[in-house]
């Protein structure tokens, strides 16, 4: 199954899974931070890997990312990525303080973003797992702050370089004052995607 061959119906099915996942993630993040965080209905799009660096402003753009491999019945990975400024704003939002308060990444900031990536990946995977009756778990994520292009290369390699496209879920976090958008790339290896679609009844 190649991503570029996905039909509109298949994209809709995946989008539905995404909405359910975002709902779970919002609940979990609100519980974790003690302040109400909402996640906008995520948009799902199919993007070419080579075009992704341009989405964040170039291959050398400094981005924060957390990557986790998928364990269980499918292979591949999930990559949470945001330009440095967005990532810092997200940290402020989660701490319920003025955007601009956090200006650099220390251990605490890395840990917080890593937790966010775990919550998002787990929520999406749980939604997929429930609808497909499969066993899916995220491996512990790894955080990195560096050039977007270099980070994406690693993610491409992890899917065995068999996929030129990625499924991109854009998710906006917001409280009353602020909205921050992050990108979540779902990178199933092609065989795994086929299995998921089959289980969703849209193969």
């Amino acid at each position, binding site marked *: 199954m190649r991503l570029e061959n996905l039909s509109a119906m298949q994209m809709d099915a995946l989008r539905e899974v995404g909405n359910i996942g975002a709902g779970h993630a919002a609940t979990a993040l609100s519980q974790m931070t003690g302040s109400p965080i909402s996640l906008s209905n995520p948009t799902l799009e199919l993007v070419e890997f080579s075009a992704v660096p341009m989405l964040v402003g170039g291959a050398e753009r400094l981005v924060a990312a957390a*990557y986790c491999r998928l364990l269980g019945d499918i292979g591949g990975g999930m990559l949470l990525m945001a330009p440095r400024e967005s990532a810092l704003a997200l940290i402020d939002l989660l701490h319920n303080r003025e955007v601009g308060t956090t200006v650099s990444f220390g251990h605490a900031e890395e840990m917080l973003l890593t937790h966010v990536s775990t919550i998002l990946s787990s929520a999406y995977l749980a939604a997929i797992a429930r609808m497909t009756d499969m066993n899916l778990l995220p491996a512990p994520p790894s955080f990195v702050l560096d050039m977007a292009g270099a980070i994406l290369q690693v993610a491409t390699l992890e899917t065995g370089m068999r996929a030129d496209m990625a499924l991109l879920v854009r998710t906006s976090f917001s409280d009353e004052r602020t909205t921050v958008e992050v990108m979540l790339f779902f990178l199933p290896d092609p065989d795994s995607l086929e299995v998921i679609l089959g289980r969703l009844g849209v193969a």
Partner: protein
Amino acid sequence: MSSDFDDTLFPNLNHPEMIEVGVGALAIGQHPRYLMTPALGSCIGLCLWDAALKQGGMAHVMLPTTLDSMVPGTEHRFASFAVAEMVHLLHEAGSPRRRLVAKMAGGATMFRTEGTMAHIGERNAAEVKRQLDLLNIPLIAEDTGDRHARTLELRLDTGEMVVRSYLYGVHRL
């Protein structure tokens, strides 16, 4: 050192003499042009240079050999193909193998993950070195490994390799 050298952290992407080498691609060129490849992670940027003609080549190698990918992609992505291919292109452009010297950078471990792609950076570096050995081309400078991304430039007049990273700034080899 040429006067047009850009000392800011990242190179001028609109420089008229720049040849950009994309991910998994390779290219050759001659002074006053120069070669650049952005954002190397676990990939290797390999530079070959001929001092006599002030020309050289650059390859952005993604994987060691074709066995690492299950579907045929473009061969230029693989060290086992790209090194010999670049030597061949330079030979056709008038640079015999005995005049070539090599420099390389990249091969980082961006994420600490297990799995099939663990140590891919190290394996890339090892295979590029092996290929250079087979062709008897000396590797005279190297900045590989570690955990950071690198942008690479090869100046074709001096053979200088410029490595740029957020962690260490500008580094000339």
